[in-house]
């Protein structure tokens, strides 16, 4: 019981310290917030540009399958042969090419903006680092997490495709618990690894993310739970705001979510620096 109390007290003090550190370094805090906003704008633009075209191709495949002659379906040997028989193969290649380009573009954006943000997070925490080294390490560490995230998205995309064909419901797998858990685990270890890049190389940061994330799971989870509570509260507040005036959500979201994201990184980095493996 005493241990729980002590962890809770530590979390509270770290929460306040993170807010104080941000207040003390307003310039870097504002830079992080601006970078977060720009990332959302650019990522949203790129995602919608690619997704619109990918969804159109996916619909075309569905329509070609629906309009296929029964004889073609019966004569085909497996899904790929069927897709070829009904003339859907170019759409499949088109989707694959666009998915690859979109992934590379989003990774480049993520590396650029978030690498830049983490450089400033360490500045807020007054951890002496070389910005280019942090940036390089951040991108290197992110390669692993991005690959795992991409794998999760591909599994989701393929599973959704088959689920849509089977159930005729495009949202059939949107809340699949296994795929969501996989996403949570990637985020958990990725967040820990980013906090380690100030003092360790990329490989060591990844290694430490696993050792800290597993061996000190109760301590790390205490911080994660606080972050979940904070973001859930912000989310519910925004939903409540939406019922009053939808335009307020955009303003409210910008003034709460963006600073909360910077605070969350400062808090989590400060918290992880207190932990030893």
């Amino acid at each position: 019981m005493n241990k729980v109390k002590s962890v809770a007290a530590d979390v509270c003090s770290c929460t306040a310290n993170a807010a104080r550190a941000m207040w003390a370094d307003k310039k870097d805090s504002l830079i992080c917030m601006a970078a977060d906003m720009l990332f959302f704008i650019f990522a949203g633009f790129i995602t919608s540009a690619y997704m619109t075209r990918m969804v159109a191709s996916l619909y075309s495949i569905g329509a070609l399958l629906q309009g296929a002659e029964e004889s073609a379906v019966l004569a085909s040997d497996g899904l790929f042969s069927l897709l070829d028989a009904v003339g859907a193969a170019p759409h499949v290649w088109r989707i694959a090419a666009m998915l690859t380009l979109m992934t590379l573009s989003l990774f480049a954006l993520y590396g650029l903006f978030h690498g830049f943000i983490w450089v400033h997070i360490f500045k807020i925490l007054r951890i002496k680092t070389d910005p280019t080294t942090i940036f390089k390490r951040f991108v290197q560490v992110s390669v692993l997490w991005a690959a795992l995230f991409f794998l999760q998205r591909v599994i989701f995309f393929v599973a959704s495709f088959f689920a849509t064909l089977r159930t005729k419901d495009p949202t059939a797998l949107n809340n699949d618990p296994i795929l969501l858990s996989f996403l949570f685990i990637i985020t958990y270890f990725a967040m820990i690894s980013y906090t380690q890049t100030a003092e360790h190389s990329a490989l060591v940061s990844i290694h430490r993310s696993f050792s800290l994330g597993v061996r000190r799971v109760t301590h790390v989870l205490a911080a994660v739970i606080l972050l979940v509570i904070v973001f859930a509260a912000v989310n519910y507040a925004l939903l409540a705001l939406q019922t009053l005036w939808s335009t307020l959500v955009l303003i409210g979201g910008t003034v709460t979510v963006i600073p909360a994201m910077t605070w969350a990184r400062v808090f989590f980095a400060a918290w992880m620096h207190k932990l030893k493996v």
Partner: protein
Amino acid sequence: MKKQTAYATGGVIALIIVLLLALSLDLLFPLESSGYTTPLGYEGPRSGVAAPETESQNVVLIEEFSDFQCPFCAQAVPIAKRVKAHYGDQIEFRYRHFPIEKIHPLAPRAALASECMRDQEMFWTYHDLLFENQARLSDSMIRELAAQAGAEMALFDACMSSMRHAVILQEDFLEGRERGVEGTPTFFVNGARYEGVVSYDRFVEIIDRELTRAESQYARDPQDVDRKEGTA
């Protein structure tokens, strides 16, 4: 400091490349065009609220109950155009509105706009534009596409705000329900129902059968057929 400048320059260049790539997607992955430009029918006003009977017994009537936001309906457009290009005046193609608002919130407004465009004898031009831009359809785009088609915008806006063609949508929808339409696209070829996207080969098979039937009927009783044509 030199190293930081190099990183910053690299970052800006990468950002520009990523954005240029997204902006040039239409060039890299153009949306497939059907290649058939034949209009599916007469662009002008519809006579009466419900679709009239065909005027000649030798013309195969194809009615499509469709929804401007339905992706399968978009897929059916190039097939219908190919069929029209092949048969010409031997077939008459009619578009019937069956917007499913629950899953396609913009479909009723797009359908209403298409009827306003029919007033200006631009129904099929606008029909094609709506389907070509289906993935990006929005309230503002419904109007933009009307302008792009060359509509007199004052007339279009007046028509849209009066909602005077809402009755056509309602009539079509109710008639579709009565005739067993449950989803879009649903085709009726001389009254026989075909659900989903009908392939080109299947259309050819159905239309040829209907034309043969009409010819054999004419051969059996030409006077009866002529009488019916005279009264239409």
